[in-house]
C-alpha cells in the first residue's frame, strides 16, 4: 500500500507522524551533544579542547586514557541507563494509564536493587557478573507483581491512581530496609559503596557491565517499540483497546516483562536512579503529544541526553568529590512529581 503513495495529495493529512523522523533525529543530535559534554567535563580539568585533540589523534597518552578509558565508558553507561529508564517510565505510564507511574516510584527499581544485592551478598554476583541483572530482573518482576496486587486489593472497583503510587512508594521503602539489612553483614567499605549504588552510581563502570546492559536493552527496547500502537489503544482504556483489536492481556504481560527487564538491567549496571522515567516522557508529551510511536523512541533518546547531563553535573558540582547521580535526578524529579500530582488532583 506504500506503493500508491502518489495519490498522497489529499490523502496525506497534517498531523500524521511524518515529522517523527525529524524529531527523533533532533533528539539523537541532542544526545550526541550531551555525550560530548559528558566526556569533555570532569574533575581532572580536561576540557572540550582535549576531546577535540583526542578525536583528531593529537592528544597525549594520559589525556587519551582519561577520556577514552574513564570518561567514555561511564558516559556510555549513563546514556544507556538514561534511555532505558526513559522508555521504561513511558511504558509503565501507558500500561497503568497513570502519568505518575515510574520505575522508582512504583518500587520496581527497589525490587531490582534487592535482587542485585542478594546476588552480590551471596557472592554469586562477584564470580559470575551476568547473574547480577538476572537477580535484579527477578526482584523487579516480584516487586511489580506485589505492588499491583496491593493496589488492586486496596482499591476495589478499578485501580486508584494514587493508591498505586502509595503502594509503590511503600514497597520501595520496604525494599530499602531489606537492602540495609542485607548490607549490615558487609564490611564498612562495601557498605559505603553500596549506599552510593543505592542512590545511583555510574562511576565504577568498565566496558563489561555496559556491554551486558546493551545486550539486554536492545531486544527489550525493540519489543516495547513494536507495541507502540497498542500502547496508544491502551491509554484509552483496556476495554476500548480490546474493541480496537489489541490482545490486551498479552500486550500487558510482554510489556511489563520487557520494562522490568530494562529497569533491572539499568539498576544492576548503574544503581537506583529515580525520576528519569517521570521527567523525560512528560517533557516529550508536553512538546509533541501522546502518540507512542514517537513518544517511546523519543523518551529513550531524551532519557539518554538527560542522564548524561545529570551525570556530568553530579561529577562537577562538588569536584573533586562527586555526587551519586540519583541525587541530581531526585533533586530535579521530586518537584516535578509534586507539580504533576497537584495537577492531577485538580482534575
Amino acid at each position, binding site marked *: 500500500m*506504500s506503493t500508491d503513495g502518489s495519490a498522497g495529495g489529499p490523502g496525506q493529512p497534517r498531523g*500524521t507522524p511524518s515529522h517523527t523522523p525529524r524529531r527523533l533525529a533532533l533528539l539523537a543530535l541532542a544526545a550526541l551533544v550531551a555525550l560530548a559534554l559528558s566526556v569533555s567535563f570532569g574533575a581532572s580539568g580536561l576540557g572540550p579542547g582535549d576531546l577535540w585533540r583526542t578525536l583528531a589523534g593529537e592528544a597525549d597518552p594520559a589525556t587519551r586514557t582519561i577520556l577514552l578509558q574513564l570518561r567514555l565508558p561511564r558516559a556510555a553507561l549513563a546514556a544507556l541507563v538514561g534511555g532505558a529508564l526513559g522508555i521504561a517510565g513511558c511504558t509503565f*505510564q501507558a500500561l497503568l494509564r497513570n502519568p505518575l507511574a515510574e520505575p522508582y516510584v512504583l518500587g520496581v527499581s527497589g525490587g531490582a536493587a534487592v535482587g542485585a544485592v542478594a546476588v552480590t551478598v551471596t557472592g554469586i554476583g562477584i564470580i559470575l557478573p551476568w547473574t547480577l541483572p538476572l537477580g535484579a530482573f527477578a526482584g523487579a518482576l516480584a516487586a511489580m507483581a506485589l505492588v499491583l496486587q496491593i493496589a488492586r486489593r486496596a482499591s476495589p472497583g478499578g485501580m486508584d491512581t494514587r493508591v498505586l503510587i502509595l503502594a509503590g512508594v511503600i514497597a520501595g521503602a520496604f525494599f530499602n530496609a531489606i537492602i540495609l539489612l542485607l548490607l549490615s553483614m558487609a564490611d564498612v567499605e562495601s557498605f559505603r559503596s553500596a549506599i552510593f549504588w543505592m542512590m545511583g552510581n555510574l562511576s565504577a563502570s568498565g566496558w563489561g557491565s555496559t556491554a551486558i546492559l546493551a545486550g539486554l536493552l536492545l531486544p527489550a527496547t525493540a519489543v516495547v517499540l*513494536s507495541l507502540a500502537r*497498542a500502547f496508544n*489503544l491502551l491509554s484509552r482504556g483496556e476495554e476500548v483497546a480490546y474493541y480496537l483489536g*489489541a490482545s490486551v492481556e498479552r500486550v500487558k504481560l510482554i510489556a511489563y516483562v520487557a520494562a522490568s527487564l530494562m529497569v533491572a538491567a539499568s539498576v544492576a549496571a548503574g544503581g537506583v536512579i529515580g525520576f528519569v522515567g517521570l521527567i523525560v516522557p512528560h517533557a516529550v508529551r508536553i512538546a509533541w503529544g*501522546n502518540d507512542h510511536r514517537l513518544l517511546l523512541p523519543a523518551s529513550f533518546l531524551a532519557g539518554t541526553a538527560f542522564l548524561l547531563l545529570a551525570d556530568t553535573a553530579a561529577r562537577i558540582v562538588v569536584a573533586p568529590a562527586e555526587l551519586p547521580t540519583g541525587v541530581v535526578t531526585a533533586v530535579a524529579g521530586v518537584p516535578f512529581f509534586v507539580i504533576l500530582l497537584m495537577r*492531577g488532583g485538580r482534575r
Partner: protein
Amino acid sequence: MKRAVGEGVASADWRPVLRGDGLAYTHPRAPQPAVRDISLSVAPGRLLAVVGPNGAGKTTLLRLLSGALVPQAGQVRLDARPLHKLHDRLRARALAVVPQSESSPFPVTVREMVGMGRYPHLGPWERAGSLDHAVVERALDRCAAGHLAERQLARLSGGERQRARIARALAQEAPVLLLDEPTGGLDLRFRMELFHLLRELRADGLAVLVITHDLNLAARFADRLLLLDQGRARARGTPEEVLSGDTLEEVYEWPLRLVPHPGPGSDTGAPQTVPLRKDAADRAE
C-alpha cells in the same frame, strides 16, 4: 503490503450475521444474573435497538456480544465462527464497538483517536499508508467531524466527542457495529443526526445494534426492538409489536400512552411513548 494475509477470512465483503444463542452471565458476587438465556441476531442491513430500564442487562449483553465478557452459558458467533476463536485483530476487523464512555489521562487529537481504528488492519511495524489515511478521512467526514480533526478530544463538546468515537469505530471498516447508549447526554440535534447516521450505515449493509433509552427514536429508526427486563428478553419484534402500553408500563413501572408519530415523512405512524403523570393511572380507573 504485509497485511497478515494468513488470517484473511475477513475479506472486504464479508458480511457476517452476529448471533448470540442462550447467553447468560452473572457478575462476580452479584445476587442476580445480569443476563439470562438471551438469544438474538444482528443481520447485515438491519438495525436492532436494545431497550429496557436501567439495570436490565443491556450493557452486559453488549459486552457478551463483543467478546469483552465470556458468557457463562451460550455462545456468540459471527456466521458459523465462535467469536472467542477469532484472533483479536481479526475480530476487530469484523466487529466494531462504541462503548458508553471512556477517558484517558493522556490527551489526543481527534485524528489520532480516529486513526486508532486502523489498528487491526496494520502489522506492528507497519506504518499507516495512504489507504489508511483515506479511510480515516472518510470516517471523519461521515460523522461530520472533519473540521475537528486537529482539535484535542478533551476540549470537544459531548456531541462532538461522540462523533469522534463513532468515526473511530467506522475507521475499523467492520461490517458489524455495536453502540452502547451513543445518544446519552446529547441534545436533540445530535441525537437525530446520530440516528440518521445509523440509518445510513444500515443502508450501506452494516449490521447495527444500538442500546438506547430513547424509545421514540428506537421506534422510528430500528427494524426490530429487543426489550430487556431484569436480564430477560421481555419482548422482541418490530417496534409496533414490542411497544405495547401494557408491557412498557409493567417494565418501566410508570403509566404511559403510545401515540403515532404525526409525520410527515417515513416515520409517520411510528409508536411514540408519552409518559403520563404518576397519578394518571389511578384517575383513569
